């Protein structure tokens, strides 16, 4: 197990290093001088020089890369040009919306998908199965930001159960804060729950066809007991992969959904920064999100190894 973790850890670090180089070079290819790009056409020469100094643009490419990465490792993401505040502070504030939103959506997605997938598998070919397959077919095809708008129309404007947008703030208390994240989380969760329910169903059907299920049935277990005690655990492996992948989709997808609900999360920060040409912020947020994705994939790999000892060897 230790060797497995070590191998995965090395691959995690390599991925992070390569990703940081790619993101760094991407911003480096900005045509011309990044300082001039950020300040626009009419910038005075001394302002440009000051910004170049502040951005550390005077060193060599390698020096600049190392200082960027070195800074991030110490939690220093640089200073936003437009807001004149440390980027780490801005990210810190916004993360307390985006991260809970992604976790909330993932929880909802799992809570919906597991029973739906299991029900469909146990009802194979009958009404429940057809219903779940039909609804999930729609759920996969619906653009989540449009679904979000429809929910605003129904639950916020007509029924007035929720507010149409904005964030109550965690200082307003857990209840109001979670309430303002509920519609966004449902919008994010719906397509993911549809995919997950389908994976859960087909994975369960696969393991229900295995010999050990026949053995369990021959031993006298009911179909339901065999499903719960034997098939479910084996069916979880592909489901875990998808949950891991979904977390990254949810983090990135939150960027769009935050715009529907005017939530001041990382997504809105990114768009405001693009509009303001604040490249330092864009660069840092993208690096952070990619870091989160790579880290989650690493954790999923570890989770596999716990669920299925066979995967610990080789791999």
């Amino acid at each position, binding site marked *: 197990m230790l060797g497995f973790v070590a191998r995965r850890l090395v691959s995690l670090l*390599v*991925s992070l290093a*390569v*990703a940081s180089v*790619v*993101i760094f070079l*991407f*911003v480096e*290819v*900005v045509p011309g001088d990044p300082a001039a790009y950020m300040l626009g056409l009419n910038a005075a020469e001394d302002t440009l020089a000051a910004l170049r100094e502040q951005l550390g643009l005077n060193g060599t490419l390698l020096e600049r890369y190392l200082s960027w990465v070195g800074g991030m490792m110490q939690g220093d993401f640089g200073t936003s040009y437009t807001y004149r505040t440390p980027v780490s502070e801005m990210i810190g504030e916004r993360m307390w919306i985006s991260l809970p939103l992604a976790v909330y959506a993932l929880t909802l997605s799992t809570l919906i998908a597991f029973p739906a997938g299991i029900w469909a598998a146990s009802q*194979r070919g009958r009404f429940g199965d057809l219903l779940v397959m039909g609804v999930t*077919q*729609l759920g*996969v*095809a*619906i*653009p989540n*930001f*449009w679904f979000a*708008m*429809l929910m*605003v*129309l129904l639950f916020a*404007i007509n029924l007035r159960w929720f507010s*149409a947008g904005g964030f109550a703030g965690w200082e307003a208390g857990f209840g109001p804060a979670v309430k303002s994240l509920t519609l966004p989380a449902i919008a994010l969760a719906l397509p993911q729950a549809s995919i997950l329910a389908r994976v859960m169903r*087909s994975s369960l*059907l*696969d393991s229900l*066809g295995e010999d050990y299920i026949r053995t369990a049935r021959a031993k006298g277990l009911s179909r339901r007991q065999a499903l719960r005690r034997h098939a479910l655990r084996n069916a979880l492996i592909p489901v875990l992969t998808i949950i891991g992948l979904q977390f*990254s*989709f949810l*983090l*990135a*997808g939150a*960027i*769009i959904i935050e*715009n*529907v609900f005017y939530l001041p999360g990382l997504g809105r920060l*990114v*768009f405001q*920064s*693009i509009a303001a*040409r604040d*490249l330092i912020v*864009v660069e840092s947020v*993208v690096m952070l*999100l*990619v870091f989160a*994705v*790579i880290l989650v*994939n690493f954790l999923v790999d570890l989770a596999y190894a716990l669920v299925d000892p066979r995967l610990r060897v080789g791999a």
Partner: protein
Amino acid sequence: MSRALLIGAVLSAVFVLAALVSFVWTPYDVLGLDIPNKLKAPSAAHLFGTDHFGRDIFSMIMVGARTSIAVAVVAVGIGMLLGVPLGLAAAARRGTLLDEVIMRGNDLVFAFPSLLIAIMITAVFGASAVNAIIAIGIFNIPVFARLVRGAALSLWTRDYVLAARVAGKGAARISFEHILPNLANLLIVQGTIQFSLGILAEAGLSYVGLGAQPPTPSWGRMLAESQTMFSFKPHLAVFPGLAILLTVLGLNLLGDGLRDALDPRLRRAKR
């Protein structure tokens, strides 16, 4: 023909037809403003109503289909053109450094959700339909590379490949003459699915302003423009959204149906 395939084919055909017809005819000019008739509810004159500039929403949806198709087709094309050779090369040189580099490169691209790629590109080069295509296209490359590598690996063990090797053909020739033709069905099915994902992605990117720019009509941007008004004029948001939903649904059903029709083994195994 299965029912899914039929419904999918019809929905997809309607969508392609709307785009094609829009080149020669739309009920109204999508660029012409008609302020006196702004925000009209659906009626006989304007089937889907009009927007805040008085433009006919039905016409805009027809022209918007063009944008969606163009972006998604080119993005899938980029993914196939680069991803398929990479996958073939990785399979032909399995277990070597080349294989390892290609597959790890794939993993890396997977770590960048297409939205993040689009954001990076937009932040640096500005928002446009072309940049949306590149962002979605880049994300498609590893999808095809991985699919092709997996399928090609099993084809390499076939007798006819062995025969070709005995006949003195090199790995590249075998890949293109014997492996690739056998992957056609797989590529058609995956291409359809990526096409529908491309349409969803384009809609999302235009919605946040990272896709096609005005005045080019696009479904995503129609939804974005309706954002401040749809609470009292729901038709502004309902129709473009339905267009996206039905198109993506149609393409998904078509993909599923084609898979069953093209691969009888899979149909039998399907539970």
